[in-house]
């Protein structure tokens, strides 16, 4: 009940935008291929639901696979470089530079390497996209430790291994969760957009481009909604895990007391 009350303004805004959209399409007699009305999109959505679920799941698997590969290698590389200061100081500028490169531009090349029909090619694109934010954030979390905490650990005769397990890793968790949230959103975007460059017939991005090419824009819109829903779900799942994993962190504490 309280949740509804708190989110009431957002719900009202959402409904108002839909009504305005519907009204505007009817009032200005906007052609369907330019902008279908919400009711037409909803009809296309329910009409194609089986197919949408099928292709949505196909692309979700690509996004999840890429997320897993990219995040785990990002964390491993971060652990390796944070251990050796020289390595992280050498690698970090490159990682930060690479993070601002539009990696999606490499999609046709990766399609060529791994096969355009092979979901693995999309996973690799997603993996490369999420790798950099994951690695950069983890390195920051491992190294941005209060110097007094390091002194405290040394005063107890703790070695680097104990410091890593008891201080650096827990300290890195909030940083890593920021990266996971970014990566969750990026992985869905990466998977759909890489499919625009060609891919398996049962992929969400391929469906959107094909339906758009044949002027069935209401179908393209319904698939876009599926992509949004998957991306949002992914993000919310990560958010939930964050709240359960690091309840002590100020970002989570503040979110819960609000």
């Amino acid at each position: 009940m309280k949740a509804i009350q708190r989110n009431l303004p957002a719900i009202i805004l959402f409904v108002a935008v839909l009504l305005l959209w519907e009204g505007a399409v009817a009032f200005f007699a906007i052609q369907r291929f330019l902008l279908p009305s919400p009711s037409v999109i909803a009809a296309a959505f329910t009409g194609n639901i089986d197919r949408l679920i099928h292709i949505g799941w196909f692309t979700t698997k690509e996004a999840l696979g890429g997320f897993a590969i990219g995040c785990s290698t990002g964390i491993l590389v971060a652990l390796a470089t944070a251990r050796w200061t020289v390595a992280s100081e050498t690698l970090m500028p490159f990682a930060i530079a690479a993070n601002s490169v539009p990696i999606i531009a490499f999609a046709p090349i990766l399609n060529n390497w791994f096969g355009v029909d092979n979901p693995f090619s999309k996973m690799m694109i997603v993996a490369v996209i999420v790798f950099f934010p994951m690695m950069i954030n983890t390195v920051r979390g491992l190294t941005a430790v209060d110097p007094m905490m390091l002194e405290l650990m040394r005063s107890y005769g703790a070695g680097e291994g104990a410091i890593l397990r008891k201080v650096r890793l827990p300290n890195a968790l909030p940083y890593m969760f920021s990266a996971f949230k970014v990566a969750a959103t990026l992985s869905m975007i990466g998977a759909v957009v890489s499919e625009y460059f060609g891919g398996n017939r049962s992929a969400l991005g391929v469906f959107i481009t094909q339906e758009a090419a044949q002027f069935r824009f209401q179908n393209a819109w319904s698939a876009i909604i599926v992509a949004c829903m998957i991306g949002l779900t992914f993000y919310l799942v990560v958010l939930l895990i964050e709240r359960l994993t690091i309840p002590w962190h100020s970002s989570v504490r503040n979110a819960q007391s609000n």
Partner: protein
Amino acid sequence: MTDTIVSLSHVDMTFNVGRSNATVALKKINLDIAAGEFISLIGPSGCGKSTLLRLVGDLLQPTGGAIVVNGKSARQARLDQDYGMVFQAPVLLEWRSILKNIMLPMELRGLSRQEQEQRAHELLQLVELEGFARHYPWQLSGGMQQRAAIARALAIQPRLLLMDEPFGALDEMTRERMNIELQKIWQQTGTTVIFVTHSIAEAVFLSTRIVVMSARPGEILHVTEVDLPTPRTLDTREHPHFFELETDVREWLRRAKGYPVV
């Protein structure tokens, strides 16, 4: 057999040796501390009090002289967890409950889980935080956090406690209460304390000896013996001899800063 727990002979400390910004922090420090003593280090800002404390704890290494802690090198004493350290800030790990924070040094020592918990609960009682075992650091006030930090330092039953302005960030009332509590803990545990402070009253109230240091380069200017009766209570502060000792330390501190002595 000697009951000297810390021995500093001809200790020099220079930062950035051989560079243009070389700074001599400490010069020719000679000091022997007997087991069970409460030593305060007092002096102008930047005189190297904290540096001296870190040298004893092997968090820094001297550029000259010898340091013996608990009959061994400072490094070996650190690795053997012979001392506990309390910093100006509580430095509690925010992802651990108060209980788990106090268990940290015992974890590193490899004590059994049961032993860790039992001892941590005893310590919580000692610092009067019994009800806060499951709380997280941010749920406690500054004074309570600092008490938890003291409990953590005592967890491994160290023969030596190094305290770097532990009450510097607390308000006057809390500070006075903490002084009384620390004194009680010192008497109950029989541990040796080296205590860095800026407060003359705090030093006189707590110490058996007060080491007054000069401005940089830090040298030992004077050692004041505090012969007030123990245990010290709130009334101790009203004792005429308390004022005499305060005045004595204050005059040496004025000398340390190069002010005229009135």
